[in-house]
């Protein structure tokens, strides 16, 4: 084969090419710049999508487990963020083994119910309880089932071992009206009516000893603070200020000194029934606050309120755990974390979320795989956009 005549071929090609006119299109620049803007927007959106996916995948991958949802400084459980018997999934039979571990809430009624502090599950027992009290640490439950029943005595269940102790010391004809644990969760005080219609009270030590006390003396009623310097009293009715008693001076009167602690009037202009349930710390009472029924407030809630022993300038008031059912009367207040003063501090745990997180553990794999696929698709899209550019 011979090579073509480059000059001749080029001349012929050039002559052919000369037949092509050229008329510049003024829109070319605008079209190009518009395409540039669109490309940038699309690329930005793709980058955002990829970033969102990466963040999402990261969040899923490193999402803390349910333990870290709990208040960090309360080992062994937490108060639930809601108490509602409709959440309970009771079996066909009542439970009989009290060795359920730590409880957070006790609900009275026909067959009382304990809420598990670890997982929020509800345990229903067939025992009748006119009066019941869960210890501040959540490991002991005391109840009295009323007169004329098989167990006409105060019973205390150790929720660690399931062991039940029938406590002697209540006279056969006494009626128990209330029981209160001391902050140490080792002593239980009961109040009631004696055989002759007189008020009676006694401290029961879980080791077995019992001490009758003078019902007129300071500490014979209400819930004492850890130092026993202040006692919080039931208001019994709607009040504008929560009633307390301060310890009397040594050598002086034996009864406590009444002292009030005002409720926030802006929250409860019509007052509220105050029912103490324990002390979160020496200066902070935990109480059920039950304002009058209204369109806004339907059910009671828990509240933290500073002891009147503190200067009024230090008083704080915070409500939590709203919409308490009337059966929820006793709480393991030791499960409230050490208070930091942060109004947003988490005081309870949402066990429904924790349960769904647990149940979704098996589904996390496909979720991550899907997210990774989306991530790869996003990267491919960006690469395609770059190639087109």
């Amino acid at each position, binding site marked *: *084969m*011979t*090579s*073509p*005549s*480059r000059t*001749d*071929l*080029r001349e*012929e*090609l*050039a*002559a*052919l*090419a*000369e*037949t*092509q*006119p*050229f*008329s*510049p*299109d003024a829109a*070319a*620049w*605008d*079209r*190009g*710049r518009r*395409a*540039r803007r669109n*490309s940038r927007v699309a690329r930005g959106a793709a980058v955002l999508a990829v970033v969102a996916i990466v963040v999402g995948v990261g969040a899923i991958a490193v999402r803390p487990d349910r333990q870290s949802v709990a208040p960090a400084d309360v080992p062994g459980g937490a108060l639930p963020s809601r108490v509602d018997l409709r959440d309970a999934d009771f079996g066909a039979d009542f439970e009989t083994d009290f060795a359920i571990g730590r409880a957070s809430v006790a609900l009275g009624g026909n067959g009382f119910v304990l809420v598990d502090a670890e997982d929020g599950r509800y345990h229903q027992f067939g025992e009748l309880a006119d009066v019941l009290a869960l210890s501040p640490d959540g490991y002991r439950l005391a109840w009295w089932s009323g007169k004329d029943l098989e167990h006409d005595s105060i019973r205390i269940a150790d929720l660690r071992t399931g062991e039940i102790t029938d406590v002697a010391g209540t006279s056969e004809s006494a009626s128990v009206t209330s029981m209160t644990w001391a902050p140490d969760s080792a002593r239980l005080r009961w109040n009631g009516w004696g055989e002759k219609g007189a008020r009676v009270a006694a401290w029961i030590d879980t080791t077995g000893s019992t001490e009758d006390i003078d019902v007129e003396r300071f500490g014979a009623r209400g819930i004492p603070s850890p130092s026993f310097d202040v006692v919080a009293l039931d208001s019994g009715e709607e009040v504008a200020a929560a009633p307390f008693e301060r310890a009397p001076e040594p050598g002086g009167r034996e009864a406590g000194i009444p002292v009030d602690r005002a409720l926030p009037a802006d929250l409860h202009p019509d007052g509220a029934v105050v029912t103490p349930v324990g002390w979160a710390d020496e200066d902070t009472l935990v109480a059920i606050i039950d304002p009058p029924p209204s369109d806004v407030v339907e059910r009671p809630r828990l509240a933290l309120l500073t002891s009147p022993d503190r200067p009024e300038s230090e008083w704080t008031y915070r409500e939590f755990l709203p919409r308490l059912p009337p059966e929820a009367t006793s709480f393991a207040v030791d499960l409230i974390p050490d208070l930091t003063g942060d109004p947003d501090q988490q005081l309870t745990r949402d066990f429904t979320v924790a349960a769904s997180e647990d149940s979704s553990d098996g589904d996390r794999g496909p979720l991550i795989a899907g997210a990774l696929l989306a991530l790869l698709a996003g990267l491919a899209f960006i690469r395609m956009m770059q190639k087109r*550019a």
Partner: protein
Amino acid sequence: MTDRSGFDAFVRARGPALARTAYLLTGDHHLAEDLVQAALVQAAKHWERIETSPEAYVRRTMYHQNISWWRRRKLVETPLESYDAPVPAADPTIRLTLEQALRRLTPRQRTVLVLRYFEDLTEVQTAAELGISSGAVKSMSRDALRRLRALAPELADLVGADT
């Protein structure tokens, strides 16, 4: 000089030359116009990046775009049975014969021919422009000339003759 005015100046100065190449690449006046415009739109899109040497970018875009367009159109290309049929010698001029024969080449063959014999690029430069090997350029160039001779034997003086 602003971006827009620089682009306009480039189009005014080099547009006609680009259009001529485009015609040889496509073998069709309308397609050539579209090809130039498409390449210029791409140039405007990336002007900040290419403004120092826009012509090289536009030409390369045309080369690749033409082959890409052909791939999309090839389902309606001329059937193969008439592929090597000689061009009717209705037109007496060599130029018209060459024009018709060029249209019967594949875009790739035509592009190689244009780069080698119109743009005067070497095999290596042509290979670099098209992103293929020098051997492929050589092979395609030989095939293109052979086909031209087959399509129009009267072009033998122009494209060389088989030994």
